């Protein structure tokens, strides 16, 4: 018995939509590496202005840029959801996000009220407008486990951003009645465990099996884990607002589930049926291992800086993994779809060796930055290695875009 396809064949967005987001994100990674190099002495105070600037450069500048870009690409392909006028829309989102993050960084450093307000306005326009469109489209489909997770992740992002906007308004000097400490705690829980972790879990349900030919995740498990994490975060938020100390317990449960999924993913990758051994798989395993370690040390209440390095390593490692898998594929596929005979092969867009060298720079940076908590001088070396890792990624994206444009301009076409 044959079943018809339920998927839409609407085209995935033009390649520049994704590459622009990725390039901006990787350049913010270069900026974050410089901040780490010069400001690492402030990092012990997680609420120092320079530390806040660094954290938001990483989470909004790097992670949000890459993740929004990936959503623009994946929603049509994985969820059958088409975003209207993706080029114009993505350009508006990319540049308002870029300006918003720059305002936010300068506001944290400078403390100027107007800068906080400008940051709040630009970030609200960039993130809430794109989230609104994505949520509206995703609400109308029959969900797969991935699309459901994506929807939950985007809703978490909205919660984190709305709370962030309230806090920025308060920092700007407006006399609004908010529970600042509680808002801050809920803000980072939804940003890190809701938006970033749930999105990566949701994407993993699709791509791990597809990229590495692993056994499937258990469907019931995949259906409920993202919902459960989100519910735990909601309960945490309500108890936190009501002032119940037991809220921490729900935060622990959410982190336990996230780390359990990391272990499950590593096991799936180990069970892969094909001898795939590229940099992207190394980045995935490193990301999931960093997340599992993060959870372990979170339960033992390790220093915030140590936990921040592990969590950032998790999220960034997955970003590198996806970039090195997606970028060569998109360049090759879009050129083939347009009928170019001399489209570069995927390994000619970004070589496997280049991606592997990038992995070793990234991993060395992670290990040395963790060690630097004991030997402060190593922060210089660790942030320098991270700088090289992000420069390599930026260069890979830029070159891929250049090769694409070159083929469009000078390539020869064929017809099927």
């Amino acid at each position, binding site marked *: *018995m*044959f*079943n*018809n*396809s339920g*998927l839409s*064949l*609407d*085209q*995935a967005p033009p390649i520049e939509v994704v590459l622009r987001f990725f390039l901006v994100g990787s350049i913010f990674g270069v900026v974050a590496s410089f901040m780490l190099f010069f400001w690492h002495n402030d990092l012990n105070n997680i609420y120092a202005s320079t530390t806040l600037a660094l954290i938001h450069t990483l989470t909004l500048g790097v992670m949000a840029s890459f993740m929004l870009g990936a959503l623009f690409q994946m929603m049509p*392909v994985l969820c*059958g959801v088409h975003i209207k006028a993706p080029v114009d829309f993505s350009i508006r989102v990319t540049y308002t996000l870029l300006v918003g993050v720059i305002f936010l960084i300068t506001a944290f450093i400078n403390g100027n009220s107007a800068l906080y307000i400008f940051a709040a306005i630009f970030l609200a326009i960039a993130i809430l407008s794109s989230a609104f469109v994505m949520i509206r489209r995703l609400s109308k489909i029959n969900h797969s486990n991935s699309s459901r997770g994506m929807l939950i992740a985007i809703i978490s992002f909205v919660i984190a951003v709305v709370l962030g906007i309230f806090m920025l308004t308060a920092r700007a000097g407006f006399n609004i009645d908010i529970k600042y400490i509680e808002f801050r705690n809920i803000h980072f829980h939804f940003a890190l465990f809701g938006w970033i972790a749930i999105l990566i879990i949701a994407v993993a349900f699709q*791509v791990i099996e*597809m*990229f*590495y*030919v692993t056994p499937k995740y258990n469907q019931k498990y995949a259906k409920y884990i993202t919902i459960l994490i989100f519910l735990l975060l909601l309960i945490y938020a309500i108890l936190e607002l009501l002032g119940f100390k037991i809220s921490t317990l729900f935060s622990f449960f959410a982190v336990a589930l996230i780390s359990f999924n990391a272990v499950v993913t590593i096991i799936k990758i180990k069970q892969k*049926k*094909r001898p*795939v051994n590229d940099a992207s798989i190394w980045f995935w395993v490193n990301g999931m291992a960093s997340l599992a370690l993060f959870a372990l040390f979170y339960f033992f209440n390790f220093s915030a800086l140590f936990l921040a390095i592990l969590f950032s390593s998790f999220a960034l490692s997955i970003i590198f993994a996806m970039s090195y898998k997606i970028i060569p*594929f998109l360049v*090759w*596929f879009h050129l*083939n*779809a347009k*009928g170019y005979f001399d489209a570069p092969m*995927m390994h000619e867009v970004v070589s496997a060796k280049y991606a592997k060298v990038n992995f070793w720079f990234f991993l060395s940076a992670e290990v040395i930055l963790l060690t630097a908590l004991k030997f402060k001088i190593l922060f210089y070396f660790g942030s320098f290695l991270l700088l090289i890792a992000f420069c390599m990624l930026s260069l890979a994206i830029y070159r891929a875009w250049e090769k694409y444009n070159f083929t469009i301009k000078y390539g020869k076409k*064929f*017809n*099927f």
Partner: protein
Amino acid sequence: MREFFLDARELEHPLPLEMAIDSLKKLDDNSYFYMLHRKEPVPLLALASEHNLNFISKKNYSFWHILISPNKDITLDNFLKSLNEIE
């Protein structure tokens, strides 16, 4: 008709698409491409649609069966049912 067959059920992304596109380049009105895949290959179908090729994608048990041909006169639905492998 000449068949270009690809069993992509155990191949990792993007090998199925890479091999499928190679096969599509060889097709003429007297040939078709038939692929088995564990997932629906949306980018391949989008590409076939963009190039105005005749195509069909259907799920049978846990696999997707994809037929693509430049020949517009074949009713791919019937053609798919007539293929021995999937009866």
